[in-house]
């Protein structure tokens, strides 16, 4: 997930591309995250000015959604489901294993920037719990071996 470095003019151009939409803030944020990999603090006043909102309002929108990142993620993002169904199917132990192998806590990225570990609350795969998501791809019936494979895939 290599992303472009922050560029104010590019950010404003992306914002302007979406300003005609109804409820333009979310599409703008998605597009910015797609371009830069995260929503930089500097982008918020640009959105606020374009949409004639306050900084506070844009801050409220961004912080409401966990999936808008405020810092760059690793090259790979592994999300482990922490919701009830997955917990009842061994999710807790898998989470502990992932944390131990990566030496990471939730929301952290390893020092070389290869993996970010995140909790997620329900991927809609309760029937094949426990579930995970690697770089947007959902994986069901996770076990220790498959988790290790995923981490190998991510270069760890």
């Amino acid at each position: 997930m290599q992303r472009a470095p922050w560029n104010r003019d590019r950010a404003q151009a992306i914002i302007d591309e979406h300003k005609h939409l109804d409820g333009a803030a979310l599409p703008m944020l998605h597009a910015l995250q797609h371009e830069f990999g995260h929503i930089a603090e500097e982008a918020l006043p640009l959105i606020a000015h374009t949409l004639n909102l306050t900084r506070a309002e844009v801050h409220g929108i961004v912080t409401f959604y966990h999936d808008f990142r405020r810092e760059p993620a690793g090259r790979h993002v592994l999300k482990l489901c922490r919701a009830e169904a997955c917990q009842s199917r061994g999710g807790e132990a898998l989470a502990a294993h992932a944390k131990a192998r990566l030496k990471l806590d939730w929301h952290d990225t390893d020092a070389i920037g290869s993996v970010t570990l995140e909790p997620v609350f329900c991927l809609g795969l309760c029937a094949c719990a426990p579930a995970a998501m690697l770089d947007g791809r959902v994986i069901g019936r996770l076990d220790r071996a498959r988790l290790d494979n995923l981490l190998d895939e991510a270069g760890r």
Partner: protein
Amino acid sequence: MEQPMHLIKETDYGTPAVTAEKMVTLTIDGFPVTVPEGTSIMRAAMDAGIKVPKLCATDSLNAFGSCRLCLVEVKGRNGTPASCTTPVAPGIEVSTQTPRLKQLRRGVMELYISDHPLDCLTCSANGDCELQDMAGAVGLREVRYGYDGANHLDSEKDTSNPYFTFDPAKCIVCSRCVRACEETQSTFALTIDGRGFASVVSAGMDENFLDSECVSCGACVQACPTATLMEKSVIETGQPEHSVLTTCAYCGVGCSFKAEMRGEELVRMVPHKDGKANHGHSCVKGRFAWGYATHKERILKPMIRGKITDAWREVSWDEAFAYAASEFKRIQAKYGRGSIGGITSSRCTNEETFLVQKLVRAGFGNNNVDTCARVCHSPTGFGLSSAPVFASRMKKRLREGAKLIVIDPRRIDLVRMPHVEADYHLPLLPGTNVAILDALAHVIVTEGLIDEAFVRERCDWDEFQAWAKFVSEPRNSPEAVAKISGVPAEAIRGAARLYATGGNGAIYYGLGVTEHSQGTTAVMAIANLALATGNLGRPGVGVNPLRGQNNVQGACDMGSFPHELSGYRHISDDATRALFDSLWGVTLDKEPGLRIPNMLDAAVDGTFKGIYIQGEDILQSDPDTKHVAAGLAAMECVVVQDLFLNETARYAHVFLPGSTFLEKNGTFTNAERRIQRVRKVMTPKNGLEDWQITVKLAEALGFDMRHEHPSQIMDEIAQLTPTFKGVSYEKLDQEGSVQWPCNENAPAGTPVMHIGGFARGKGKFNITEYVATDERTGPRFPLLLTTGRILSQYNVGAQTRRTANVAWHTEDRLEIHPHDAEQRGVRDGDWVRLQSRAGDTSLRALITDRVAPGVVYTTFHHPDTQANVITTDFSDWATNCPEYKVTAVQVMPSNGPSKWQEEYQELSARTRRIGDLAGAAE
């Protein structure tokens, strides 16, 4: 002092009142209640005297439904709906207290309290905490979750705002502050950061309050149910024990406040919910900036000196009065009766103003009385920074769909700010107001947009036709005016069509209109527009001047002008004068006296030698500072009555320490002609109320105008002034406020003027020819300077500079367009020299495209800047209102303060010395 009232706790109905024709009857806890359709169950219950527990609801804000404490049961319906968000319905039977509700509410409170510090005894909100009240109301006895779980108790307190603190550890995330910032204040500076348990209130982007978009109006503090947002004064002092209702002394909105007191100590000012001008809201100045009353620079003892270069000598009141009186008498004996005069203040009460003009007319025996209303120049642009509470309400209307046209040389905030966007901004060159207004009229007339029925019924048709012919001339067309004003013709046409056809149209204007050589013409041109489109004489329309100072209206009403007695009656009218003559036992002069500029001219010429100035700093606020200084310096006895040794006092021989609005009784009249009580909440620190000082000065002069209480002065005003005939303190105490005219025809006052006809007969159309000001740009002075105000400061800043409001405005800056700055090699923050034909000053530059190329702008809150050193003495043809808004200037880089400023600093220090001992010279 006024009889103290108990601490006023206004009833909180939980949700706003609803107006609806249809009434609905239901029963709540067995009691029948009838309320307007659309009312919430919570409010209906409160109407019946039944309090439903609540935390996130308060009647100044729309229902939100988040705290889950106000749940009720409705017979036959499922679940437990929130009573704040559920409207009443005919015949429903509501229960507010059932075993099920009791259990639910206790459960909710347990969750709140499991994440709340248990320091009630030492908490600043102790005695005024809704969370504590609700814990009691639901019978909370234990918290089954304990206190060891995840919590916010270690959150850091934000103390950055000078007036209040934000302590997130005590926050219950009810969102009342966030909603107050949006709904009450229209600023949107607060939000909820995150979601679920992680939710916290955030100013801006998790900034501290001072750095955020917050304007410190305090609406959030007032809305907070806990100690999360709390006045620092309450933290320091403790809870108040009684309140006194009074009126703010800052701007012309006239906000009604509860002064919440502990003995004679002011704990906090809280806007009064029943205040008809402000409906429970206020701005940073009124609510918080009252610290000047106890500022160490306030002068509390009378002082005199023979020469202005002498040190001041503190004397007794009697000595000060005797000295001033003997000087005035000596001067009149030597130079004639007309050689002295007086100036009334737009900041003092009606009663005080009335007494000063009475002293001049009846005591001095001439009509040399004038007021700073002539030179009041508070507002920026259209006055919204100077009338913030009005601005909040206007922005609310704009969010609800009202359209907006802004005519201002600068791109002021209102042109585009969060949730507000003007439909048209006409960025005219300073000095071209009348041309633009005539062009608007041109479009309205030539495109057939006039309200002919209104004009035929309410105006003189022939006069209208003459005016219509005039404005229709090609030189008044938008295309012609575009060349003079710099505003594109299409924008003028669009704005004119919108005003004429957009439904109810109201015009609000500030001193951007009046402070021009054609100020009076512009006001007439505005009236023409309103008449031609039928936008007068009913709610929601009209022509509304926004007054900068609290009592500009009152000062004008009270006969402060040299040619007018109270109620705008000409001094030459024999019948009117006879009325005053018989009551005052004198014979008034029938000739109008001198205006302020004429007094100064006469002083320079040597025929005017003494002046009594109450509560006005003419040296700093009047144009052409050097001329004012020369005039004052030529006088032999200048008596200044003020809180501080202001700029004018540097030229004074007698200083009479004044009292603040907290220390006296009286009335102010706001911009909507609303007369409101000012009540004394503490003993004057200087010993006398301002009106008493005038009475005693008169007495020393041998003129008896004794009064025991300002109510008697109002009785005299009522007796002498037909439009005030029905006004009395008794009525004001009863009604809260009254809008004049108040007399036998309108015993309850007159909220809307000109209904069904104009007081002076037919509406008058005036021919308003545009005449360019004599102040022109040229090669030496190629830029146009215009001056204004900002929100956190007031007038010349004498009060606000002596409060923590300086946190928002530490210095005056010169706004200059990037193009003009680049041409002159000026960078942002550089010192620049600002020079006009009249003088020069230095200040730091602020580069911004808010101003157009060719236009520069500054404020004048700080005496070090002395922007008026460079404004000229051109003034309006009809009123002598000085032309602050247009001065041709040049700007060039400089190294720091100008020679004038350095000399001034030195002189300022020298003329402000107060001797340590009586008579101690250097």
